């Protein structure tokens, strides 16, 4: 069913080398509307480099990226793409001296969001940040900072969302509610989500398809059940351990 729809994101033979080190080796994949694609792999597998190339933060050595049919390496097309896309990572933060509301207002303006105030109110409610919305960002706990980053990622109602370990510093309750929200967005808004996490249970629960990366290559792809079966694992965590320890299917 999914294959009949035009992909929002297409990656063909994407490679990236840093001097003699090849971080990403001829990677190809698509992302469709209303799909959550999980990227798994040990540290240094190339997941973050791929996300950075999709965002135009790192230029590819070779290969092709098309997002909404546009080329992100061209500045004008990149600008058009980024209006309809967003990103969140545990490893980035927000200006410490601004309040949450001010930070979100800056991003609402950057993304040209109409009715920014009501959008911010909605997101603050959604990510349970209402009590701290007028507090400076520097006073937030790491979990609150992660939720603020997620609220920022939803500010422009993106059609594509790139999430780099978005629940890494959330407690199990908030992480669960975040996953529920992502699944709801996927279902109701047909949002396409590219997701990385080291939480295998989470990946199993949330992903429609998975890409398994190792040493910059996709060594396996499929639904979570497919991968568990192919690697003859007990669950995704077991599969991950086999991949990390160089066991091929």
């Amino acid at each position: 069913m999914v294959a009949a729809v035009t992909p929002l994101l297409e990656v063909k033979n994407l490679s990236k080398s840093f001097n003699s080190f090849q971080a990403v080796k001829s990677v190809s994949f698509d992302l469709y509307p209303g799909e959550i694609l999980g990227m798994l792999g040990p540290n240094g597998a190339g997941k973050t480099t791929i996300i950075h190339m999709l965002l135009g933060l790192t230029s590819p050595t070779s290969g092709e990226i098309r997002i909404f049919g546009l080329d992100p390496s061209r500045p004008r097309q990149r600008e058009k793409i980024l209006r309809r896309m967003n990103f969140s990572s545990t490893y980035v933060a927000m200006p410490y001296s601004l309040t949450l509301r001010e930070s979100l207002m800056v991003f609402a303006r950057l993304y040209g969001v109409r009715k920014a105030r009501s959008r911010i109110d909605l997101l603050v409610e959604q990510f349970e940040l209402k009590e701290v919305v007028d507090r400076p960002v520097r006073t937030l706990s790491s979990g609150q900072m992660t939720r603020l980053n997620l609220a920022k990622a939803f500010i422009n109602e993106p059609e594509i969302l790139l999430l780099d370990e978005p629940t890494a510093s959330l407690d199990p309750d908030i992480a669960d509610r975040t996953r529920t929200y992502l699944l709801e967005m996927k279902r109701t808004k047909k949002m396409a989500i590219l997701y990385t996490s080291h939480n295998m249970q989470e990946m199993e629960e949330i992903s429609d398809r998975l890409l398994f990366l190792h040493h910059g290559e996709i060594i396996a792809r499929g639904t979570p059940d497919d991968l568990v079966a192919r690697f003859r694992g007990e669950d995704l965590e077991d599969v991950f351990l086999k991949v990390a320890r160089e066991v091929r299917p």
Partner: protein
Amino acid sequence: MKPYRISAMFLRHIYLYKHSLTRLVEIFYWPLLDLLVWGFVSLYITKLSAEGKSTPNFLGIFLGALILWDILFRSQQGISVSFLEEVWARNFLNLFVSPLTIGEYLASLMMVAVFKVVVVFLISSLLAWILYSFNLFIIGMYLLPFMICLVILGWAIGILTTGLILRFGQQAEVLAWGVAFLFQPISAVFYPVSVLPRFLQKVALAIPASYVFEGMRSIIFGRTFPVGHLVKAFGLDLVYLSLALFFFFRMFRQVRAKGLLAKMGE
């Protein structure tokens, strides 16, 4: 007090200098600049006394020079420190994955620089008037075009510094505080260009700020408005700004290729 713990912390700082050329250079940088600036100021005063000339309006020259120098410095800081604030806050990635273009980002930093300059100029001029009865506003309108020249030069130095920080990371951070001062001794801020040794006079001819400060002294001494100085300052400013922008965009392309843009933001 345990000597081994004190020595551990001493070692920690020595390791830092071992790995950072900019920090090592900084140790010598500020004393050398102070020596140059105050040495040339002393030469200027000695020269005037030796020639038996009447004492010029030192209050006007020094206060005016200080206030104008701060315009250049704040303008540069408006660019490079505002950029660093995004790096320190780990907000850099969030900005560069938004539709914000690099041109728009630089334009916003230039606006911040102008805002800082206006605030600093108003406050320091007011304080100079209250504390020293030095009213810069009387000659302010004549100085305005020269102030604009300093703002543009500040932008150029700020953009250049930001390009270097982008390329070499946070170890190049000290440049944000120090690069503008490199121009101070040869810009003849507190003394005429003629006080400088001949080879530095030639260097000063290529610095827009030296025309600005010579122009300022002309205005304070009540001479005719130095149109020539203004034209040269503007012309050089345009060259400096163009070169700084070219350098910045080149650095930006390089850091994208090397994956350093993403690293800087995390």
